[in-house]
C-alpha cells in the first residue's frame, strides 16, 4: 500500500501527547482506589487514640466499616451495570425494603425453609427489575421515570405487606420461627472479625467483576452504553441487554434485602431510604461515567468502601452528620470533574 505511510503519519503523530494523557487517565481510572488510600491515611492521622492505640485501625472498627457498606455496596455493584448502559435505577432502596419485608414475612408465616425463601425473594427482586427494564424499553420511557415509579410501587407494596409494622424474626424450630442458621448474616466469622454480610458483598462483587470483564454479556453492556445505535447495527441484542441490567439491579437489591433482614432480624417497609443515592455516589466516585460506555467494578467497590471509611472517621471524631453530607457531596463533585477533564482532554466533548 503505497500511500499508507502518509496516513500512518497522521494517525501516529499525536503519540507523545497520548502517552502523557494515559498517565492522567490512569490516575482518574483508579481515582476511587487512590481516594480510598487517601481517606485511610487521613483516618489514621485524625483517628482518636485510646491507650495509645489508633481506634480507626482496630479490627472492630475495620469490621464495622466493611459491614456498614455491605448493603449499599452490593447494590452499587449492580448499579454499575445499569450506569454503564447510560441508565439509572432509583428503585433499589425501596426494593431492598420490600425484599426484607418479604423475607421476614415468609420466614415467620409460611415456613418454607431457608433456601426456598431466599431463592424466591431473589427471584422476586430480579422480576421486579426486569419488569422495570421491559417497561422502559418497550415504551421508550426514561429509566429515571420508570424506576422513580418503581420506587413508589416497591415502597407501597412493602407497606401493604407489612401493614407498616416491623416484622420481627424469631429463630427456632417450629411454626412462626425462622431457621436459626439465617441469623448467621448478623455474625462475624474468622475470630469474630469478618462480618458475614461483608462476605456476601465480596462474593457478589467478585462475580460481577467477572461477568462485566470476562463474558460476552459484559461486552454487550459496554457496547450498549458506548453507542446504542452502533451496537444495534452490529447485531448486539440491545433490548435484551437493557432489560437484563435492570434485572441485575433488582436481583442485587433483593440480596441486600435478605442480608438486611438477616443482620437486623426484622423486615421493615421504612428502611433503605436514600440507598439509591449512596449507591450511585459509589459508582460515580468509582469512575463510571453517567454518559455510559465506560466504568469499573473495582472502582465501584473502592468507592463504596471509601464512603464508609469517610463516614467512620467523622463519626469517630464526633463530627455531626451534616458535615458528613457536605464531605460526600464534595467528593462526588470532585470525581465528576476529574472525569469531565478526561473527556475534554480526549477531545470527545460534552
Amino acid at each position, binding site marked *: *500500500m*503505497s*500511500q*499508507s505511510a*502518509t*496516513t*500512518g*503519519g*497522521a*494517525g*501516529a*503523530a*499525536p*503519540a*507523545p*501527547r*497520548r502517552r*502523557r494523557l494515559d498517565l492522567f487517565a490512569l490516575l482518574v481510572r483508579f481515582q476511587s482506589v487512590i481516594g480510598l488510600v487517601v481517606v485511610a491515611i487521613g483516618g489514621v492521622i485524625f483517628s482518636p487514640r485510646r491507650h495509645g492505640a489508633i481506634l480507626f485501625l482496630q479490627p472492630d472498627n475495620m469490621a464495622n466499616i466493611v459491614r456498614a457498606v455491605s448493603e449499599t455496596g452490593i447494590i452499587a455493584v449492580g448499579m454499575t451495570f445499569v450506569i454503564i448502559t447510560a441508565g439509572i435505577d432509583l428503585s433499589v432502596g425501596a426494593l431492598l425494603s420490600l425484599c426484607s419485608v418479604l423475607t421476614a414475612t415468609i420466614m415467620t408465616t409460611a415456613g418454607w425453609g431457608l433456601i426456598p425463601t431466599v431463592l424466591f425473594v431473589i427471584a422476586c427482586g430480579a422480576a421486579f427489575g426486569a419488569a422495570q427494564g421491559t417497561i422502559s424499553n418497550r415504551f421508550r420511557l426514561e429509566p429515571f421515570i420508570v424506576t422513580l415509579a418503581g420506587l413508589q410501587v416497591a415502597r407501597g407494596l412493602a407497606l401493604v405487606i407489612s401493614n407498616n409494622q416491623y416484622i420481627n424474626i424469631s429463630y427456632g424450630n417450629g411454626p412462626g420461627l425462622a431457621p436459626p442458621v439465617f441469623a448467621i448474616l448478623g455474625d462475624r466469622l474468622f475470630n469474630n472479625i469478618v462480618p458475614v454480610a461483608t462476605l456476601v458483598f465480596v462474593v457478589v462483587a467478585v462475580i460481577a467483576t467477572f461477568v462485566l*470483564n*470476562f*463474558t*460476552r*454479556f*459484559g*461486552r*454487550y453492556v*459496554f*457496547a450498549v452504553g*458506548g*453507542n446504542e*445505535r*452502533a*451496537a*444495534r*447495527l*452490529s*447485531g*448486539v*441484542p440491545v433490548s435484551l441487554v437493557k432489560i437484563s441490567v435492570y434485572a441485575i439491579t433488582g436481583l442485587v437489591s433483593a440480596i441486600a434485602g435478605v442480608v438486611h433482614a438477616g443482620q437486623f432480624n426484622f423486615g421493615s417497609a421504612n428502611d433503605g431510604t436514600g440507598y439509591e443515592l449512596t449507591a450511585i455516589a459509589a459508582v460515580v466516585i468509582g469512575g463510571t461515567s453517567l454518559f455510559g*460506555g*465506560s466504568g469499573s467494578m473495582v472502582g465501584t467497590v473502592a468507592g463504596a468502601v471509601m464512603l464508609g471509611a469517610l463516614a467512620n472517621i467523622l463519626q469517630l471524631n464526633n463530627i455531626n452528620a451534616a458535615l458528613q453530607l457536605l464531605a460526600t457531596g464534595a467528593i462526588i463533585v470532585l470525581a465528576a470533574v476529574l472525569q469531565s477533564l478526561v473527556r475534554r482532554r*480526549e*477531545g*470527545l466533548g460534552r
Partner: protein
Amino acid sequence: MSVAAEAAPLLAMRGVVKHFGGVQALRGVDFDLKRGEIHALLGENGAGKSTLMNVLSGVFAPDAGEMLLDGEHVRFDDPRAAQAAGVATIFQELDLVPSLDVTANLFLGRELARGGVLDRASMRKEAVKRLAVVGKDINVDQPVSELSVGRRQIVAIAKALTYASKILIMDEPTAALTASEVERLFAVMREIAARGVGIVYISHRLEEVPRVADRVTVMRDGQVAGVQAARAPQSELVRLLVGRPLDELYPKRAPSFGKPVLTLEHASFTPRTERPGWQAPEDVSLVVRAGEIVGLAGIMGAGRTELLTALYGAAGSGKWSGVVQIDGEPARLTSIRAARGEGLGLVTDDRRGSGLLIRDTVGRNMVLTVLKRVSPGFLMSRARENAFARQAIKSFDVRPPRPEIVVGALSGGNQQKVVIAKEVLGDPRLLLLDEPTRGVDVGAKGEIYARIRELAAKGMGVLVASSEMPELLGLCDRVVVLRKGRTVGEFPAGADEHQVLAAAERSEEELV
C-alpha cells in the same frame, strides 16, 4: 482575481507556529487572502489546516508568528474578538439548537426585540430574506431537528453569512450537500466574494477546487506544501497533498461476477409509522451479483440511505413487498437479526453517531460484530479476540496498528477503516456501504477503494451509496440511479458523470 495587486492583502499570516504538547501542529505557516478572493485550503487529516483556521478565528493563540488584517497587526484572544473584527467561521459540526426553529437559530444571541419583547414578525421576515439566497425551500418555522443534515448546513451558512464582514471561513461546507445544493452554495460564495469578502474554503474534494476557488494553498505536516492557481492540474495538487504522485485512485480490474446475491424487483418497503423526510423505497429493481460492486446514485432525499437501512432491517418495523431475494431465495429482511442471518452487513454514513464506540478501543470495536464467534461460550477469550482484531487491523492497514488504542484518537480515515473492517470481519455475503469515504483524506480513500475491490474479487457483493459521483463511477461496476425511492436508470462503469447527474436530478424540475 482582478483585485489581485491593488493593495495590501486583506489577511497576511506570517510564520505561524503552534504546538500541542510535544506535537508541532503548525511549523511556520505563511498564508494570505485577498479581498474578494475564494481561497481553497487543502490538506489531509492532521495536515494542520483546521489548526491554522482555529488560529485565525481566535480559538487557539499561536505560539509564534503574526497576523495582519488590512495591513494592521491583530491578535484574537477568543472567537468573539475575531467575530468582532469581521472573521466568521462555519464549523463542520454545526452550532445549531435542534429544538428551536430556523428563525430562532438564525437570530440566536442577537434576537430582534422591541421594548424587551421579541419581535417575531420582523425576525421571520428577515429570516426568509436571508434564506432566499441560500435555501429558498427551507421553511423558517420548522424546528431544525426536522431538517436533513444538508439543510441544517444551509441554515448554518445563512447564520454565519450575517456577520462575516471581512473573512468567511468554511470548513468542509459541501460534505453533506447534493450536487445541486453545492452549485447553489458556490453561486452564493461567488456573490459574497464579489462584495469584497475573502473566503477561506476548506475541502477534501479536489474536484471542487477549480469550480469555485481562485487560488489554493496545500498543507502537509503542518507546513505549506505549495500555493497554486486553482486551475492547476489535479495531479499536481494530489502530488502536493500526499507528497508523491498518486497514480490511480481507482485501480482498474477485470471483474468476474457470480450468481445474484441480492435481487430486488419492484420492491417497496412500507414503514409502519410515517416519518417526515424519510423517503421509503417505493419501487426498486436491482441486482447485485457475487463479486460485483453496484453503486447507488441519487440526490439527497432520493432514498439511498433509506434503501440500505431498510434492506438491513434497521428501518424500524414495516413490510417489504415485491420481490426481495437473497441468493435467489425469498428473504424476510425485517429485522437486523434476520438481515445479518442472511449474510448482510451495513456500514453507516455516520461513523461517530452509529458506527463506532468512539471512547472504546480499536480492538473492542473490531470484534463487536463477531463476539459470538470470538467467544462461543459464556466467557470472553482474550486471545481469540486479539487474534481477530489484529487480523482486521492488518487487512485494512489501520494506523497505528495497535488494538489497545481508543478509536476516537485515530484520524478520520483510520476510524473509517475500523468501521468497514468491523463489518467485514463478520464475513457478509452482501456488504452495504453508505458514504464509505465521507470526511476521509485522499490517501485513506485510495486504500479503502482498493480493499473494497479485493473483497469483491473474493466474491462479496457490494452495494455502495455515495453522493460523490466520481467515487461511484470510479469504484463501481454499475451505477443504479434512485429518485424519490424509485430506480430510474442504470449506467455502466466509467459512464459520463453529467448523464448520471441528469437522471438523478430530473425529478427536481418535474416537481417544482
